[in-house]
């Protein structure tokens, strides 16, 4: 017992770290994957980088980490063009924009950098049991809330308990599924009601928290930087439960002004910040509505210094403006034209396969997204995902599509309706239009039903066929688990294939990347063969930054953080 305790204090190293070292030495995993996985297993980023350096025999430097440059100037006001939305409850955020503001006031237990490496933040370190089911997080000591209270384990326990209470309405409920149990009851629609398993989160001491999972999860730390997991004060609910009215946080900035649809102002706090120096005195988030042209005009006339996102339609114009840098963010954001397998005519796999066979992925990317991105293969795993397994290239096959259609009983063609809401830009509509053209060659007539964005989200899981925009996720298994596992809330295609679920479970539980990649072959193949979706490309996303801004880093999920940003 004593020995075990000592082991904990001495920070046990997960055996997986040794395996990863071996893999890296033998060239079986990439440097990036080594860094990502070992940091998830509790090795500090600095140690991970130096381990990688010694194994590879050359200096591996962090590519893009928020480190201060020596000559950065203090002071000044950064103006950031971005929609300012209602953001009362950090646990229920459904737009990343909200978290961009909140991230400077409240903080996360960890921070996943633009290099996909997860680093300590409010948690200084973590340990995981060999079976990946028990996680111990050591919390940072000496951190004060802006109301003067100490940051302690009770804060973390409170947040977990709150997220996992179905009454809160937090999407974290799906994220931490391994901490939930069935209540045995069902809601009006027959979906099982879940609740947090007793003792799923335990306070060990004032600065240590233990998480007990019912199944293995490797990405636990990574999940703790998912944008609705910002840690609020333990009295958040007692004090009204509205972050914008009572913005108590541990971060370096204080929210001093907030008007939905107009502006949010952050001012540097007077007290010293545990995370070291921040440069900007003030950050102003300026809402310019939903017209991409307005954002371009604002940055062109220097009314803002940087944008949350540069729309594809204004990309070319932005490149021509002097003093502005256009940055591309590699991402796995994508548009999925999914077909609901429970609805006619898509309950016939031949119809779905026929539609899929009509798609020319390269043409889709070239026309709908100006060629800016990477082509995909209808299984929602991107070649930039670490566990991607390369399947044989997927080719357009019009004759094959016609044949399948005839077999399915539609020799004279078929009429389909596809919903699209342009929730992330007009490229969505263009993607459906290109598919319509290609499908017409096989006698499939697609009617495009263009809907207002807000209304699209009312039907996204209901319509028989529609294009849904999915955001970036660092791991393919994360998105596959969210979108294609039987019965999960975001399974918009109602896909239900036990063989797929089993293959995915196996891949998720496989810790070694090489073995995981091998297991992904089956996962990708099943999903592609079942023709649940037409998923032609992963798109790049863009932003524009004035050249007077120093140190601004892009992030694949646009989790911007201005702690180390300064003005020239």
């Amino acid at each position, binding site marked *: 017992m004593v020995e075990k305790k000592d082991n904990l204090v001495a920070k046990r190293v997960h055996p997986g770290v040794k395996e990863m070292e071996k893999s890296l030495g033998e060239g079986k995993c990439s440097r990036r994957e080594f860094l990502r996985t070992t940091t998830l297993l509790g090795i500090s980023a600095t140690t991970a980088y130096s381990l990688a350096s010694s194994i590879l025999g050359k200096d591996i430097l962090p590519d893009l980490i928020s480190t201060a440059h020596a000559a950065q100037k203090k002071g000044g006001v950064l103006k950031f063009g971005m929609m300012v939305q209602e953001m009362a409850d950090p646990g229920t955020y459904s737009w990343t924009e909200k978290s961009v503001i909140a991230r400077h006031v409240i903080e996360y237990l960890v921070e996943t950098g633009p290099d996909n490496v997860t680093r300590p933040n409010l948690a200084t370190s973590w340990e995981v049991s060999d079976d990946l089911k028990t996680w111990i997080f050591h919390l940072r000591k000496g951190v004060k809330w802006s109301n003067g209270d100490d940051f302690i384990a009770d804060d973390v326990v409170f947040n977990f308990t709150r997220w996992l209470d179905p009454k809160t309405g937090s999407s974290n409920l799906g994220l931490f599924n391994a901490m939930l149990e069935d209540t045995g009851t069902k809601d009006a629609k027959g979906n099982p009601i879940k609740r947090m398993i007793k003792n799923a989160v335990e306070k060990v001491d004032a600065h240590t928290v233990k998480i007990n999972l019912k199944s293995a999860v490797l990405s636990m730390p990574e999940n703790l930087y998912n944008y609705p997991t910002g840690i609020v004060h333990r009295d958040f609910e007692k004090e009204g439960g509205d972050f914008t009215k009572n913005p108590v946080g541990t971060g370096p900035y204080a929210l001093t002004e907030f008007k*939905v649809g107009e502006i949010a102002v952050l001012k540097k706090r007077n007290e010293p910040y545990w995370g070291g120096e921040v440069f900007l005195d003030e950050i102003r988030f300026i809402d310019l509505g939903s017209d991409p042209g307005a954002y371009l005009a604002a940055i062109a006339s220097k009314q803002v210094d940087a944008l949350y996102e540069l729309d594809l339609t204004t990309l070319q114009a932005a490149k021509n403006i002097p003093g502005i840098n256009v940055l591309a963010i590699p991402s796995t954001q994508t548009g999925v034209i999914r077909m609901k397998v429970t609805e006619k005519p898509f309950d016939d796999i031949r119809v779905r396969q026929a539609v899929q066979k009509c798609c020319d992925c390269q043409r889709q990317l070239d026309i709908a997204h100006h060629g800016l991105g990477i082509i995909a293969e209808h299984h929602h795993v991107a070649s930039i995902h670490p566990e991607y397994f390369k399947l044989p290239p997927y080719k357009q096959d019009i004759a094959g599509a016609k044949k399948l259609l005839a077999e399915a009983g539609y020799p004279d063609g078929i009429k389909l309706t596809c919903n699209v809401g342009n929730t992330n830009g007009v490229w969505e509509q263009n993607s459906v239009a290109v598919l319509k053209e290609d499908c017409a060659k096989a006698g499939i007539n697609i009617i495009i039903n263009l809907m207002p964005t807000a*209304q699209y989200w009312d039907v996204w899981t209901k319509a028989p066929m529609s294009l849904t925009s999915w955001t970036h996720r660092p791991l393919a298994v994360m998105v596959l688990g969210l979108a294609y596992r039987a019965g999960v809330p975001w399974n918009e295609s109602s896909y239900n294939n036990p063989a797929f679920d089993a293959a995915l479970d196996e891949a998720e539980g496989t810790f070694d990347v090489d073995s995981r990649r091998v297991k992904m072959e089956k996962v990708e193949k099943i999903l592609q063969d079942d023709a649940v979706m037409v998923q032609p490309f992963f798109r790049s996303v863009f932003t524009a930054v004035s050249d007077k801004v120093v140190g601004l880093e892009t992030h694949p999920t646009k989790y911007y953080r201005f702690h180390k940003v300064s003005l020239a």
Partner: protein
Amino acid sequence: MVLLLLKRIGFMIFTMIVVSIILFILLETGLTGDPATRVLGNFASAEQKEMWRDQHGYNQPVIIRYAKWLGNFATGDLGTSIRYKGPVKDVLLPRLWSTAILGFWTFAIMIPLSLTLGVLSGMKEGSILDRSISVFGILTTSVPEFASAVFFSALFVFGLKWLPGTSSMSDGFAFKQLILPAMVLVVYDFGYVARMTRASMAEVMTSQYIRSAVLKGLPYRQVIIRHALRNALIAPFTVIMLQINWLLSGVIVVEFFFAYKGFGALLLEASLNNDIALLEACAMVAVVVAVGSQTLADIGYTFLNPRIRFS
């Protein structure tokens, strides 16, 4: 006079009630989607939504809900905005004020400009001045606001770099940011008012008493200022009052384009986000302004034109 006023006000209230019924049927009866989903997000469970509906009275009969809603509205409780998560009144009033400022400057430039050009043009029908002003007026009026907004932006923001590209007033009120939106509105509207003034002026100039005044040897300037103008400006007065109505719809495009935080942008945002309470309040404000400006125009007209007053 008092009777006329009462009649007009009665008509105004009647119109508002009719509009409110239509609004309520369109927005509150689930025709445009489930309000619970919008408030709680797409990922809320059915149980949560049901709880919300219960709390917010959405499970009561439509008639009772309408009566309650109308009662609240009449007492100044405009409801709670879904998007802004706060009382509609707190959002709406500052936005209305912003639009009033934009409207004031638009009118302050547009009215003198269009009246002057209209009078100059109508003084001598068919002259080169008349033709030039008319052609220019028709040209600007036929270019819609969304096109002129792009054109002026390209010229003054991206080309000459003289003016700021957006008008969010995020650092407090800045007159410079008001120039482009006001310019777009003025350019679109002045041609119309100028043409109306011109027509009215031209008609007056052909009347008997002007001819008499000229023939009896009065200086031309005096004929125009003392005799022609007073009568010629009655018709444009009504037209100008109607422009207040037009402005309310015109600002939607302009405010969206320049990110000006006014009533038009709010109305658009409310409708794009299905923010029911806000949409209702905006629509009611629009009705009040429309009916109110018309009433004012009628009353003003009777003052300006004695023939109506005494008939």
